[in-house]
């Protein structure tokens, strides 16, 4: 391996070899182009395919009020016209070559990917480098994609009970920090974007020095680096502006929001302010939330769904954001049960987490479940590339998934209780209660009758 890397370096001006990192049973190799583009390669010969991910360090946190949803709109616009490709040709060329392609946006990042037969790697390199610098942003494509995104918002938020509640949770829990607004954007903002807004955003954030390319599959590193250097080497770096946002002051009092929805039963979402992904306590908190919510044997499921039979669909997770996010807890009431009953039972479990140590058996089970979850995510080249890209982008560590696995193994019951005491602070939580509209109308009618 060392010989090959030296050859690659020697042959390609403008490419710096940054080192290797073990990943599963392979070895990640890292390179940087002179224009700042990071490249990560993992050779994986388990299938004759290659996955090509481009992670941009831009997400909804980089937007401004009034322009929310712009980062996500790009997830659509980037599949349109470039200076050398007519609208529709991007997808057509990739499909003609058997590619799967898609994209995702969240608060801290946006990624685009192609998974192709491995002999088609060159096409992905060519097309991703093209749209990194030569996207055409004009009507009617911008207007049409705004319509598509508005429809996506209806489907994910406006007509979706959990989507609507989740949006309100973050809106209520954060005032100043950009996590306040949804990644898909407010509907009014989506409708008001102009091609000029898009062009300014593109010029600011879509540049080689704001991106990491991850290539995983049945490839030769030397060939990958040569192709990438050739396609991207001439692209200019951009001046990425310093982030300009404020953190919220510590929340001092519980916040509650009631949301009326067309839904058969009440729902409850609780959000405690949590750690950033890179904070040391993210690991013990994730283990604790796994013990509380992971699977049917978890504490919360066993208590609320099986023993008390007051809830169904119970879930909890710690947001995996670059800045401190939320520890979310979600529950759906059984027919005839209330959100207050769920809250009361959840509070018992939260108190228990703060007051008592988890058992050795609980901790061992949570560790095994999270190990399984990681292994499952690595079954395909795309799965590996996504894990590498996520940790490289958010934490700067492409093998962060395995570092995290090691951290899980080291965590103790005491670590979990300390984390619970620090983060399960009731004054610093936000609660969204979803009330069925029919139920609300009946209560109003009863109140009127009583008056």
């Amino acid at each position: 391996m060392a010989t090959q890397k030296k050859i690659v370096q020697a042959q390609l001006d403008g490419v710096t070899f940054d080192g290797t990192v073990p990943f599963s049973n392979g070895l990640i190799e890292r390179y940087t182009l002179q224009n700042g583009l990071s490249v990560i390669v993992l050779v994986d010969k388990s299938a004759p395919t290659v996955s090509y991910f481009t992670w941009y360090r831009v997400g909804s946190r980089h937007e401004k009020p009034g322009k929310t949803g712009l980062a996500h709109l790009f997830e659509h616009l980037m599949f349109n016209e470039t200076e050398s490709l007519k609208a529709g040709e991007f997808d057509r060329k990739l499909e003609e070559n058997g590619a799967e392609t898609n994209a995702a946006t969240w608060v801290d990042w946006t990624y685009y990917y192609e998974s192709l037969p491995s002999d088609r790697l060159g096409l992905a390199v060519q097309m991703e480098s093209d749209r990194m610098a030569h996207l055409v942003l004009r009507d009617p494509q911008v207007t049409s994609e705004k319509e598509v995104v508005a429809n996506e918002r209806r489907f994910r938020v406006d007509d979706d009970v959990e989507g609507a509640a989740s949006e309100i949770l973050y809106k209520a829990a954060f005032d100043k920090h950009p996590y306040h607004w949804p990644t898909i954007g407010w509907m009014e903002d989506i409708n008001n974007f102009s091609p000029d807004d898009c062009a300014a955003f593109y010029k600011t954030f879509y540049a080689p020095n704001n991106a990491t390319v991850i290539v995983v599959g049945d490839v030769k590193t030397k060939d990958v680096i040569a192709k990438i250097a050739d396609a991207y080497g001439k692209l200019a770096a951009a001046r990425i502006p310093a982030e300009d946002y404020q953190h919220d002051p510590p929340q001092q009092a519980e916040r509650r929001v009631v949301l009326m929805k067309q839904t058969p039963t009440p729902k409850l979402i609780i959000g405690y302010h949590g750690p950033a992904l890179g904070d040391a306590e993210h690991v013990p908190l994730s283990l604790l939330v796994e013990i509380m919510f992971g699977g049917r044997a978890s504490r919360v499921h066993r208590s609320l769904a099986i023993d008390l039979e007051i809830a169904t669909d119970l879930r909890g997770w710690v947001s995996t954001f670059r800045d401190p996010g939320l520890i979310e807890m979600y529950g759906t009431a059984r027919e005839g049960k209330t959100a207050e009953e769920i809250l009361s039972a959840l509070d018992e479990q939260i108190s228990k987490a703060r007051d008592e140590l988890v058992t050795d058996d609980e901790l061992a089970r949570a560790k095994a479940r999270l190990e399984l979850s990681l292994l499952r995510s690595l079954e395909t080249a795309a799965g590996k590339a996504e894990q590498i890209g996520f940790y490289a982008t958010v934490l700067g560590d492409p093998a962060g998934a395995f570092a995290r696995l090691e951290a899980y193994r080291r965590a103790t019951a005491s670590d979990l209780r300390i984390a619970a005491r620090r983060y399960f602070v009731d004054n610093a939580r936000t609660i969204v209660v979803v009330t069925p509209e029919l139920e609300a109308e009946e209560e109003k009618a009863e109140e009127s009758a009583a008056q």
Partner: protein
Amino acid sequence: MTTQRLDTKDGTVVFLEESHALPLVTITIATRSGAAHDPPEKTGLARVSTRLLMRGCEGADARKIEETLDGLGAEAAEEVSHASVALGAQGIVRNVDALVDLLSRILGAPLFAEAEVARLVREMDADLLEVRDDDRSLAERALRKAIFGDHIFGRVTTRASLAKITREDVRGFHAKHFNKKNIVVAFAGDVTPDQSRALAEKLVSRLPTGEAIADPTPEPIEKTGRRLVFVDKPERTQTQIFLGALGTSAKDDDHFSLLAADAILGGSFTSRLMREVRSKRGWSYGASSRLDVARRRHWFLAHTFPAAADAAPCIALELDLIENYAAKGISARELSFIKKFLVRSYAFEIDTASKRVHQALDIEIMDWPADYHSGYVAKIKAVELGAANVAVKARIHPENLAIVMVGTAAQILDKVKAAIPNLASTDVIPFDTV
């Protein structure tokens, strides 16, 4: 790697797809018979019975099973179709012996405790109630009835059918369907043939020999006329729309021709539906068509989810597109393109050991031609334009479509009806009765 066959000494069919890329193993135990055997008034019995396997067995109650699986770094879930029920488990390979020991007891010595039966029925009842939040699921439930009527494929589990299921029904289902001849076992992942043979013997050791069970499903019959089924739900800003009819069978001579043609209509991101509905007009986030393949002819569906204001013109456009598709077929250029797409993207149908072994399971259980998967690429390459267009005309009948949607009737029903030429019938169904 080729899928290996390692049958047990008593004749249980066992497949292995070996892969040592990750320290994981996936184990699937699938029956040759499934929900088609549910009594109509007890639809849901196959799912209840299979799910109950995990709720107690010799030496372990439900809680013990769940904790043991977690401790082993394993997960298990059931999969239920009309043709088969399957218990699938995936786990970290270092614990595979303990996992198989547990699965062996789950399969061969389930408890089916009365309290667990009642508890599961209550859980599933609660889940059914929550389906009312999911407009797409509501539409799909109504669609089954609209396309298949009283046929087995038209049945859906209801709160009433769940309530009728008893412990004796569950015990009867298990006794009938779980035997050595009626199950097929598949291993995928970090295990060797010798290991798999031994694990398979252990896995089935508590089951009776039994016999394979025949499928009672008749061929479905096409319904005629354009029928609108409108699932009425308040306050919808968006609709869910399905246009559907009978589709294809794996045994049809024109099966692969129709698969290729359908991919042109709605099976890719550059398909006709996607281009016209999403790219040109921005009406729907998704626009697709598909042909489901089962043991009998299943459905052809086109699916969109436009805003309420765009629902009527979107249906009119889709009807135009399907009429044009049936009347004029596809072009040589389109066929050439889609063949490249389907052939080259086939690599992603077989890029994991689990996917490869499931292809072997399909052939063994679904009664499809033996070369259905292995010959896929060659058969797609061999599709000819004339044959594809004959297949489209023969199988897709725009005059006999069911149009099933979820929306708010007071807002859009009249416009939707006006957008459907030759509409034969209209049913408006309250969403909480679907």
